[in-house]
């Protein structure tokens, strides 16, 4: 446990020193919202639920919910998902 703690601390310091983007260093999701028509989420871990009104995705820090109307998954690959439709909100839950 102590070893893990040390490892995390070291990583945080390295990231700060090297100025690395955190989505790379900590596997955090990177979310790009284009208007209210498209949401691109990198670094997702899979779909929790999907229907026309809401798409829930598993990410490193928990879950991301995209809500809207007529949602369509334009494409999905292991690292990246593109959701299109009439976007109303993106929430962290």
């Amino acid at each position, binding site marked *: 446990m102590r070893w893990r703690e040390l490892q995390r601390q070291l990583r945080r310091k390295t990231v700060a020193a090297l100025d690395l983007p955190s989505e790379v260093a900590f596997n955090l999701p990177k979310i790009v919202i284009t208007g209210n028509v498209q949401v691109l989420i990198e670094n997702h871990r*899979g*779909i*929790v*639920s*999907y*229907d*026309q009104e809401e798409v829930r995705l598993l990410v490193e820090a928990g879950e991301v919910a995209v809500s809207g109307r007529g*949602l*369509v*998954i*334009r*494409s*999905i*690959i*292991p690292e990246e998902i593109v959701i299109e439709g009439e976007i109303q909100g993106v929430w962290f839950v």
Partner: protein
Amino acid sequence: MRHLIYYLRGYVAIIVEGKSLERFINMAVRRGIKFWDVTYLGRERILLRVRWDAVRALRHIARRTASRFRIQGKAGLPFVFGRARRRKALYGGALFFLAALYFLSLFVWVVEVSGTKRTEATAIRRVAAEAGLEPGTLRWRIKEKEVEQVIKERFPAVAWVEVEIKGSRALVRIAEKKLPDAIPRTPAHVVARRAGLVEEVLVLEGQPVVKEGDTVLPGQVLISGEIISEAEGEGEVAPGPPRYTRAKGIVRARVWYQGYGEVLLRERGERPGRVARALILKAGGREVRLYGPGSPPYSRCRVRVTTKKPLQWRNFGLPIEIISREFTELVPYEIRRSRAEARRLAEQRARRMVHSSLPDEKRLLRESVEEVRAAEPEETVRVRLEVEVLEDIGVVREFKP
């Protein structure tokens, strides 16, 4: 761009049904199967598109996630080919057509020769065929430079030749040398073309027979091609045998031309006016008017009738005739002229008559216009035109010694 790749590789649209569709998607995605255009259709039903070679793996995943799917549609090139395999005759035919077209385009089918004036195009075509350029030859077998060389060697009159193959046509472009015309060697006199008064004799070859001031008649020898050598000194000696040559020279003479023109002071006549056409179909003994007037529509007119028999072949044919009648109206007219006007017109007519018979190379010396008046005054102006011209009246006429 991405859609093009999807199309080339082929994809299917499938409808997945099941209780845990999210698991189905996650599992597939983790295995590297890419989905796109995932659409929610209703409770526990989604439509998605996927590469068609991933379908086998998806079956496995569906079994493990307790879902079912069915293929809704196929798109892409592999399926087009699959259909083509079923309709062998159609696609095979199309392929055969293309192949045949390509095969036929490998040959030269037409040899065109242009630029020939004195040499026969057919002769050039024959020589080109000997050199390996003829309809039905494979295009790459033809050596243009060689064909050019052969044509140049065989036709000395050809100055330049270019062989160009354009598709299935071979163009042979030729420029000929300008060779001087062969001069005939037969003896000849220079004789008079017209009657006239000789002004000037310039002999280049031959013996002059006329001198300045002589009056000559048409056909009279001016410069003789028969040279009789005069014996010098002794007048008694008989002249030697005559030498024959082709006489050459210029004999300029005064020549008179006459023209005449007359114009009526009051001219009456008829000129064509409106035109009406009628088309008549004649079948058997009956005539049916298709359109146009049946009888002449003008009080005075000229009728032209043309008959056509359609569908004729040798002795057989339909007993049908198409007759077209063209009525041209004749309108009477009357022109009144003053005496001066009439005279000018008459002069013009006379001059036109004279100038049509004048040679190209001449020098006008004198022109006189004279009005011919009759004993009692009449309704016509008559004009006589006399033109005096200096021109070369000699023409070459060959003779047998």
